């Protein structure tokens, strides 16, 4: 177990380092002049040269990379061109909203998918099963931003139960939660569709095993067998997919924040693109990618904890 953790941690750190290299390479080595991008094609040669010097673009690439990483390790991600404040300040300010969306979306996804998936497996080859499978097939094909728009049409435009977008801030918790209901629902619809299928097939496989038949023969109540005996053993593939889904959920928050005009990290990155704010884009893309691999790393560790067979091998 100790050896496994050590090896996995080293791998994780190497991955994070590689991500920073990839992001830095794409944003700094690819043809394209950041000074020209910022000032536009009408800028004079002197202005361009001055800005290049100010941005440190005349230093060798490796020196710039080392400086960026060194600063990042001390919490300094550079200064945003457009906001003229440290990037870390902007990120910390917007982080709570994005994390609430992502965590809310993940919790809702897991709950909905477990209920639908286990329910479908319990009603295998009956109408409930077909219904869940049909809905999930549709859910997978629906773009999250379109689902979001349909939710807005129904609940904000027609019924007027919930706000169509915007965020009132955390000072009014009730209004804040109301503003997040539709965004979380839009994220959940698509993700739960994928996870419900995995849950169903994993549960079906476990339900074929002898110990489930024995439990049934001993007269245990159906619900107890499903939730106490089938679910724990069906969890391993489910946890794997949840980890992988976190990547699409993070991407999902970027899209959904733009649909609902929520001032989180996803909206910030688009404002950064519009303002040609390269340090901000670079920091945010790195942050998103690092969140994804961190979650995958944690899932790998949890995976070993819930499956004793893997623990023995590790």
């Amino acid at each position, binding site marked *: 177990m100790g050896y496994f953790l050590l090896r996995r941690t080293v791998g994780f750190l190497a991955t994070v380092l590689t991500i920073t290299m*990839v992001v830095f390479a794409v944003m700094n080595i*690819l043809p394209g002049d950041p000074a020209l991008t910022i000032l536009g094609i009408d800028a004079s040669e002197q202005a361009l040269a001055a800005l290049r010097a100010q941005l440190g673009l005349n230093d060798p690439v490796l020196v710039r990379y080392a400086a960026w990483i060194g600063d990042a390790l001390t919490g300094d991600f550079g200064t945003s061109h457009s906001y003229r404040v440290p990037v870390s300040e902007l990120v910390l300010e917007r982080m709570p909203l994005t994390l609430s969306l992502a965590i809310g979306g993940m919790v809702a996804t897991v709950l909905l998918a477990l209920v639908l998936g286990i329910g479908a497996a319990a009603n295998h080859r009956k109408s409930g099963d077909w219904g869940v499978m049909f809905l999930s097939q549709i859910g997978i094909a629906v773009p999250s931003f*379109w689902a979001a728009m*349909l939710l807005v049409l129904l609940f904000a435009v027609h019924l007027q139960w919930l706000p169509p977008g915007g965020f009132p801030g955390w000072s009014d918790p009730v209004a804040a939660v109301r503003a997040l209901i539709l965004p979380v629902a839009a994220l959940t619809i698509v993700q739960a569709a994928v996870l419900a299928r995995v849950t169903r097939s994993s549960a079906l496989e476990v339900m074929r095993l002898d110990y489930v038949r024995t439990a049934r023969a001993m007269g245990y109540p159906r619900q107890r067998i499903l939730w106490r005996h089938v679910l724990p053993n069906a969890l391993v593939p489910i946890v794997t997919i949840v980890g992988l889904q976190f*990547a699409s959920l993070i991407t999902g928050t970027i899209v959904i924040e733009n649909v609902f005009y929520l001032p989180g990290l996803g909206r910030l990155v688009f404002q950064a693109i519009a303002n040609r704010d390269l340090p901000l884009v670079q920091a945010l893309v790195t942050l998103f990618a690092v969140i994804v691999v961190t979650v995958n790393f944690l899932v790998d560790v949890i995976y070993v904890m819930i499956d004793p067979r893997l623990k023995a091998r590790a």
Partner: protein
Amino acid sequence: MNRHLTPNLILGAILVALVVGVAGLSLIWTPHDHALMNIRERFGAPSDVHWLGTDQLGRDIVSQLMVAARNSMTVALIAVLMGGSIGVALGLLASALGGWFEDLIMRVADIGFAFPALLFAIMLSAVFGPSLWVAVLAIAFINIPVFARVTRGAANVIWTRDYVAAARAAGQGRFAISRDHILPNVAAPVIVQATIEFAIAILAEAALSYLGLGAQPPSPSWGRMLSEAQTLMFMAPQLAIYPGLCIMAAVLGFSLLGDALRDLTDPRLTRSRQA
């Protein structure tokens, strides 16, 4: 009825034929010029002339949807072909050479999975400015590790076969074997994967163009039609419906077809069906 003709296969094939057919048809014919504006006829209701009505600038919606289908298919096709060929080549190479090279390729592929297409498109847009090519490159990029992994997995199985051992004994080199024996035998899983990736590419293209990182005006795309419709949702909610239905039909078609093809070609499933 042939037992291979599952409902998934039939529905998937019909939807794919429909979307691809409409996209192809738009090359030679659309009911109207898709870009022709007519402010007096804006927000027109469906009629004999404009089957689904007109948008905020009086443009014909059916014509726009048709051209958008073509754009969406083109982006998905180029992206999957680009990412697929690089990925398949890397997968074959990894499997043929083995050792540290294989480990390296697979580790890099793992890292590739940490970058969703959207993150890549965001980086490229920040450097080059948003364009259709940013969308194509971003989607192509995320396809490389997917195909590398599938190809290498399938190729490693083929390398253990007797006929490959025979070819090696006959003095054929690793690259020649990869080309003559491995590639034809990994084609089935690669094609299945390509069909599924095509569905994912359509979704990704829609999201990117919705966010303004894909096709730029005046070239129509389903995603951008939706983002334009969003600002008019209180006035003309119908505009927010049709492009979404098109995306759904296209994605559903390719993913059903991909699932059905996988069931047909996966020997494990075939065996359990016979049992």
